[in-house]
């Protein structure tokens, strides 16, 4: 049984001996890594502070001064990520179900759409949405404004919906055929089978890749600064311009990196825990 398929399946499974056995230990592991990173950053800043000539404010105090503002920008990034994820998931589930439709044209169109948005770069899709969506929508006489940040949310939800579509398709296909057949023999209609039997079982398998996608999306939200929306990246650059000091560049960008790391790393860890729990049970 040492053929490639088995090996590949084994490679998909995470190693059991990485951080410890229980999920708690693993999450603690993430805590230690994080604490070490923050400690290293603080130490670096403290050294820079000590090395600064008197009369000029130290690097650490400048960081403390700007941190709340940059953190506000970071919260905006998170808001964008949650909104894009919600829209992308809702649309993606529908597209994923269209991919397993019994109607060949629907199935093929959904497949094409999924592949197209999955393979286009996120930044290009973001440009696509910001430039090609109208700045307001006219319904009769009323004009509903369509601000840039809303367009960016839609732009980011495009790749999300394509990826969710693939996750849904994969999840549904991973359910054994026997489930479909027994549902059919119990006189469930196709819609009932999908919503009451297949999806509830598939959801559990779809959650880890879905969380992974969310972490990727959160990191991609910084792209909105490229299309001119004020986020943590823009604010960081603004702070650097305001201070005009070269020795600030390294610590301030490192601080921004740490903010994202503190948010995304626990998600990645928890995703692995879920994957492992799933792999053990099957």
């Amino acid at each position, binding site marked *: 049984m040492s053929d490639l398929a088995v*090996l590949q399946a084994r490679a998909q499974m995470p190693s059991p001996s990485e951080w410890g056995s229980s999920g708690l230990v693993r999450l603690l592991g993430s805590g230690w890594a994080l604490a070490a990173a923050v400690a290293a950053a603080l130490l670096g800043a403290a050294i820079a502070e000590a090395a600064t000539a008197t009369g000029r404010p130290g690097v650490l105090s400048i960081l403390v001064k700007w941190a709340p503002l940059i953190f506000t920008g970071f919260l905006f990034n998170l808001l964008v990520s949650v909104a894009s994820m919600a829209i992308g998931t809702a649309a993606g589930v529908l597209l994923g179900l269209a991919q397993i439709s019994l109607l060949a044209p629907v199935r093929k169109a959904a497949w094409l759409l999924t592949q197209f948005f999955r*393979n286009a770069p996120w930044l*290009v899709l973001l440009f696509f949405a910001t*430039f090609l969506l109208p700045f307001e929508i006219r319904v009769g006489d009323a004009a509903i404004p369509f601000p840039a940040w809303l367009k960016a949310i839609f732009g980011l939800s495009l790749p999300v919906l394509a990826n969710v579509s693939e996750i849904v398709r994969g999840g549904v296909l991973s359910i054994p055929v026997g489930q479909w057949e027994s549902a059919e023999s119990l006189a469930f209609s196709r819609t009932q089978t999908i919503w009451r039997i297949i999806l509830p079982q598939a959801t559990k398998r779809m959650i880890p890749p879905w969380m992974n996608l969310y972490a990727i999306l959160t*990191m991609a939200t910084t792209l909105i600064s490229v299309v001119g929306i004020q986020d943590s990246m823009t604010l960081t650059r603004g702070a650097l311009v305001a201070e005009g000091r070269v020795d600030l*560049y390294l610590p301030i*960008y490192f601080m921004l*990196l740490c903010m*994202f790391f503190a948010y995304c790393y626990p998600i990645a860890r928890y995703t692995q825990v879920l994957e492992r729990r799933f792999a053990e049970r099957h």
Partner: protein
Amino acid sequence: MESVVEFFRWLADAHKIEVSIVYDPLDRGRFLTGLLTTIWLSATCIVFSILIGLIGAWLQGAKSRAVRALVQGFVQFFRNTPPLVQLAFFYFAVSAALPSVTDKYGAAVPLIDNIGWAIISFSLFAGAFNVEIFRSGIEAVPRATVEAAESLGYSRFQAYLYVILPLAFRVCLPALGNNLVNLLKTTTLAYAIGVPELLYAASQVWSEVLNVREMMVVLLFTYVALVAVLVYFLHRWERAMRIPGYSA
């Protein structure tokens, strides 16, 4: 060829669909340069990221705990932070901390230019993913195979190079392919530091000709085509590397 150009010129005149990169020599040049830059950037980053992945995966099997922790730290940090911020960190912050050199006109220029930083940044980003991918492949190689190599007198490095890696590489090719496709898409971020790649070239064209709509369609299709070409070659590679009797 001439009739194609005529067709697009007619399309611009009659229907205001201005795909200027076909009939305007300046725009065509920009677009082709952008395309070449993207291909070159991707190819270089693919090579470096695979090298980083191979070296990192080897170091993760090291006896020293410190080395393993260091590699793990590198992998987790680069995997869980935004590539755009990483790029900015390298291009603005690290570059400013490095000494500058004088070019042939006597002006001070940074040691590494924007394309150089893009290559470094994207290679490290994709390389961090590759370390994990190769590690999972190495772990899938049966323990008995490694022991057999050891009993034949292979050193750790030799066993890695001649026995483990060839098997592991085949196992993790699908995952590696996924990551390389991602890397190709990530090269668009180089736009943010002014590397004249495809997206940058397209934005130059649309800010002058004001044909955002047309250029967007061209861009999307070009990237999807580039990904398709990469996937095609990865599949061919996968097939060429197949060992008869080893795979299912």
